[in-house]
């Protein structure tokens, strides 16, 4: 005779262990963590392909594929027999050539089914962290030198002060010292109290002004702008780690220069030729008006295809030298019309002359998205060696 079965039909109010956490969700998070790490190994691709600018968010969305837990499997066969059900007779054709068979593989696993993709959301800060580790860069320090801000800093102790600045540890120490001599003295007297002092001190400047200038003449293609935009974006992320406060200015030019806000800047399309001095001149004007070099660390990044008017050579050179004397670093990114002639252009020549004269500057060629990675690495490594030097 069978024993009767038992039935447990719980009320909704009861709490069960399985309400406390979801194992499925736990293992799913672990999967995502592993994917995140796998994504990290593809940092150069990520940097090059992330459509990051303009979104205004602090994250990048990266489409990834689910990880597969591999098993021994037979090779996909040329022909596979199966059994179906329904009205069909021998010789009937049920599928057409070219129709991709998207049937999920049945069996022990659930892996391999197509159907939906995973979009991983990565924090820009994390990516920059990875970048830093990948490039083995030390943390950059703000430039010192003549540039200083004034700020209150803690320095020393005083016997008088506001209650909130009482240093308990220090006061106790004083009390102990006193009682070594005077064993029966009171636990604390006013003379034991020590208060932290604040004084005004000059600090290394933590403000930066970053100029992004771009040639928007008709010879700059959409692709060129996109490359420049990527480079600008990652450079900006790197500088953000270095300075507490960053202000930006965007200058576009053809034969003339205009200042724009960020969103307009990448949309601007001009016509006509390229006169770089117009932009450099405007940068100098803005520095004079808004960014005192004794307060700001100044950076200029300039993107162009390099085809500057030859007649503009002297004007552009002198204008650039003027910026250089006020700035920490000048970066030139070229999106050359032909790959093999990268950095042999008129504009590249101007920057080269500046570097040879001892100006802190660098030139990078952006021929394709892969080159963005190389350029960024080059830029940050320049920064580190500048600092060491």
């Amino acid at each position, binding site marked *: 005779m069978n024993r009767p079965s038992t039935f447990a039909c719980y009320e909704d109010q009861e709490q069960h262990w*399985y309400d406390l956490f979801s194992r499925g969700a736990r293992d799913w998070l672990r*999967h995502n963590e592993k994917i995140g790490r796998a994504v990290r190994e593809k940092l150069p691709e990520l940097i090059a392909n992330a459509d990051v600018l303009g979104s205004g968010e602090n994250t990048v969305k990266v489409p990834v594929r689910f990880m597969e837990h591999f098993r*021994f499997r037979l090779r996909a066969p040329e022909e596979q027999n199966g059994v179906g059900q329904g009205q069909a007779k021998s010789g009937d054709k049920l599928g057409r050539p070219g129709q991709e068979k998207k049937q999920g593989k049945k069996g022990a696993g659930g892996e391999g089914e197509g159907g939906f993709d995973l979009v991983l959301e990565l924090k820009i800060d994390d990516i920059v962290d990875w970048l830093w580790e990948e490039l083995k860069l030390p943390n950059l320090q703000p430039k010192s030198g003549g540039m200083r801000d004034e700020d209150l800093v803690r320095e020393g102790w005083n016997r008088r002060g506001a209650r909130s600045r009482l240093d308990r540890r220090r006061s106790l120490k004083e009390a102990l010292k006193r009682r070594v001599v005077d064993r029966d003295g009171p636990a604390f007297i006013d003379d034991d109290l020590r208060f932290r002092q604040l004084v005004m001190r000059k600090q290394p400047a933590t403000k930066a002004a970053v100029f992004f200038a771009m040639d928007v003449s008709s010879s700059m293609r959409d692709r060129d702008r996109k490359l420049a935009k990527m480079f600008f974006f990652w450079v900006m992320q790197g500088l953000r780690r270095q300075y507490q406060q960053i202000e930006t200015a965007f200058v576009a030019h053809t034969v003339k220069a205009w200042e724009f806000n960020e969103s307009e800047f990448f949309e601007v399309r001009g016509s006509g030729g390229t006169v770089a001095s117009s932009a450099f001149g405007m940068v100098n004007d803005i520095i004079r008006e808004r960014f005192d070099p004794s307060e700001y660390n100044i950076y200029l990044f300039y993107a162009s295809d390099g085809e500057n008017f030859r007649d503009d050579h002297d004007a552009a050179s002198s204008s650039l030298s003027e910026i250089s004397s006020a700035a920490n670093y000048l970066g030139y990114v070229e999106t050359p019309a032909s790959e093999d002639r990268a950095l042999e252009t008129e504009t590249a020549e101007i920057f080269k002359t500046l570097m040879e004269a001892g100006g802190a500057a660098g030139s990078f060629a952006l021929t394709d998205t892969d080159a963005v990675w190389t350029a960024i690495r080059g830029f940050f490594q320049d920064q580190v060696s500048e600092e060491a030097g």
Partner: protein
Amino acid sequence: MGRTLKDNGLSMEALGQDLGLDYYPLHFEEVPESFMMEIAVYGLPVRMPHWSFGVRYIYQLVQHRMGNSRLYEVVYPGNPGRAYLTKGNSLAENTLVVAHVLGHADFSKNNALFKRSQEEIGYRIVEQAAAHAQRIASAIEEHGEEKVEQVLDAALALEAHVDTFKGMRRNLQKQPTNTSVNSNCAFRERYRDLPGEQLQGSDDGQQPGAGAIFSQEQDLLWFIANHAPELEGWERDIFLAVREESFYFYPVFACQIMNEGWACHWHAKLLREADFLSDGDYLDAIKTHSDVVRPHAAGRNVSLAANPYHLGFCIWEKIIEEQGMERAFEIRAEDDDFSFIRNYLTEELAAELDLFEYVAKSDGTVEVVDNGIAELRESILASKFNFGAPVVVADRIDVDGTLHLVHDHKTDGRGLDLRRTEKVLEYVQRVWRRKVTMDTVDAKGAPRALSSAA
């Protein structure tokens, strides 16, 4: 005061026992749908953690959201058996499910494959799996997630590579290690038996078992657990835990069509007899029955898959109609899907059910073919051979500890997927800690040796 699930369930049981169902007592539990979903994904209510379950979980979740799957019950054989029902299903639905579970419970107590696996691994798989999960959790605490995960990557990848014929508990000493040396040399045997003497001592600097020839060992989990040169105790523990669960899963896998068909037969039969159900509940339950036991092609002209519930149900109905209930009880005790399909899916029945065989080519063409009932049966069974996995054996260990695996491509008809194989070899190498190789054939049928990058 209406009837509760317990009332209906106990009435169903009484009815089932009158009709000859024989099973260990069951513990029924109604659980939230979210938990049912996890049970379906993990195969067991509490199971070891692994990221691959997370992937299956998301698929399940999405499918569920799209309304493509409904979960009614999961039942674990054992003494007591444990059945989980979805809370929130209607009383009529869950009453039907209780009847269905009784069918499964009868099957798992009496079917030879289930009986054997329970005798070997015990009658409390739910608790045992929970204990495995617990031990793995403490291993994670002690050795870190990464290390434990590496072992699980390898062990779960080899999940299907066990040998249920050789059994769960195997004596290590009786393995024919070094048969070529030992068997033909009586002196050596006598020498080895001397007190204090150890032949093939491990102090000669060789790997234990190195150079040994094994009899084409198919139980890779067992083999690695016992012969891996530097496997630590806790790692072996994980391999053996995964193996034990595989032994549990095997009969479920190998009897799916029979078992589901049997349970469907019984819920239908019990429902017909259940005079304690109101008309409304009866109609609801019958509707659920026809949703479950329905050919995939229903409502469409053709489907490229056959519903195992429907197939099993129809074969059982035919057997009972033609051979009687007594014979049906015998078949449920003796057969598995292979013998069930080969013996009882007759040509007439296949025609009645509109089953057809087709050939799908890689270019997308699907052509209906008629190669006779024998081939149709084999096509149904094709995915079930060898626990659904390619036939791979451990062939030998070299003196340097390299493990050679060999794929029996003749049996399987074609070679392995090379990319996936290399990945699995990498998993295995991390626990074997020596090179691991695999012999198979490529697309052209030419021999191909793969090896882990070591």
